[in-house]
């Protein structure tokens, strides 16, 4: 059983914490049960040790308090000795928890997880050879279909042309160009006048400066209205 487990887990050696458990098991499932049982026992021992530690801590605290208020030297010394004994016990328990229980529980956890995975994998039945061949053929066909669809999709994207305007749209576009030219022409003489130094330029009122952008845009969109500066003059 030990060799089988080593092979299953892919390890050369097994820790001494788990070897006896594997040796006593008849199969992997039984080994897993034994491991879980051992882990539960150690967790229970650790819990008991922790509770004992609490009791010792509490007693140490009480004695320290008692020693603080004590006036007699001999009594103080007795309390100090008692505290020393309690600390030894605490140390002993801490060592036990750290070096035995925590260490063992860690190993148990690892092995329980590994065995669970192994058992899960082995519990899944593999399909027979014929089924596997059929599945492979099916997968190959699906892959080919996918390739074809991909090529087709690429072809459609490449042949696609930008949309062409119809007659009416073309007329509107021409009109838009015309209007743009007209505005450009009107703007040229204004620029020339603005460049003259002797002509006083009045500042635009604050309210106008702070007009929101969308209002400005709306104004720009109205081509019939004359430019603002011309109106002021």
């Amino acid at each position, binding site marked *: 059983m030990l060799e089988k487990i080593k092979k299953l887990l892919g390890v050369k050696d097994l820790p001494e914490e788990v070897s006896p458990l594997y040796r006593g098991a008849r199969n992997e499932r039984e080994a897993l049960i034994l491991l879980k049982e051992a882990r539960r026992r150690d967790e229970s*021992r650790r819990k008991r040790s922790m509770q*004992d530690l609490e*009791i010792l801590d509490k007693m140490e605290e009480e004695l320290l308090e008692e020693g603080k208020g004590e006036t007699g030297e001999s009594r103080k010394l007795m*309390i100090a000795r008692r505290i020393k004994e309690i600390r030894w*016990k605490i140390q002993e328990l801490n060592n036990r928890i750290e070096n035995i229980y925590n260490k063992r529980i860690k190993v148990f956890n690892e092995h329980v997880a590994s065995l669970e995975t192994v058992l899960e994998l082995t519990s899944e039945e593999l399909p027979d050879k014929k089924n596997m061949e059929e599945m492979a053929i099916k997968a190959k066909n699906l892959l080919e279909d996918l390739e074809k669809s991909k090529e087709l999709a690429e072809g459609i994207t490449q042949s696609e042309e930008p949309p062409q305007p119809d007659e009416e749209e073309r007329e509107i576009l021409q009109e838009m160009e015309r209007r743009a030219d007209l505005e450009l022409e009107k703007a040229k003489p204004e620029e020339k006048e603005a460049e003259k130094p002797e002509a006083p330029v009045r500042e635009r009122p604050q309210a106008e400066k702070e007009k929101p952008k969308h209002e400005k845009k709306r104004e720009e969109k109205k081509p019939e209205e004359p430019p603002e500066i011309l109106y002021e003059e």
Partner: protein
Amino acid sequence: MATRIKSSRALPIDRKAALVTEESFFERLGANMNTTTGIYNPLDNRTYDATARNRVMKVIDERSSEVKALIKKHAERDLMKTYEEIPKNGVVLYEILHKDLLGPRSTKVVVVGAGFSPTLDLIRNGSSNRRVAAEELARVKDLVVQNPNVFYYVGAFSTTSWEEGCRNILVGGNFLMALCDLYDEAWRTYFPPDGRWRGAARVFDLTTEEEKIEAVRRFARKHTFEILMDELSEDFVFDQLGYAIPIIREAFEQLAAEDRFLRFDTGTRPYRLVRTYG
């Protein structure tokens, strides 16, 4: 060798709890008397029939009157309520009578039950853990032990235990006294070592064997620290509860069988209950 530190004083007992324990003491004493068939008189070295037809029960209410007087003096209000709540420090006498072939019926042995409580503290503060002093015990002994031709067995019960000095005045020419108390829900009785006790000691043994085992188990469960320090020995329990060693061992065995973190260590004497982690 572990350092032993004497435990601190017991928790205070309140009026109602004191009253309940005192009443319980008299009930248990009465039950024991009812099952007693014969009682030994060391003065004439004879055992007398102690069944109901040769037994007379008397109650001395002198000390109850003292309690009343103290309440009147120290309680500020609810005097009646205080009196009802408080233990009465009762004294009960069971006189064992015997009629000789020629002559009248006379008292040969008297079994006494007496309750003690720190009455003044209970009146003033409502609770107390003050132990009963030897002077008080001696006063009550003088009150009941009066006839030099009669032998007295006195069972004194304190709701707050006894001062150390009490153990020094328990033996006399025509009397023997036992000190009873209730410690951690366990009835305890201290008998001064004396050969005259014989079967009379059973009268003041207030618990059954099962109750004692249960009391030891409860005691052990409450003394985890002593278990951790390897100090919960049969001697330690005997000092605390006064129960016989076989009873303590029986309780230890039961505990070790039930709890896998406990082991009954019989490797060294005194036997003890120790922690094991398996």
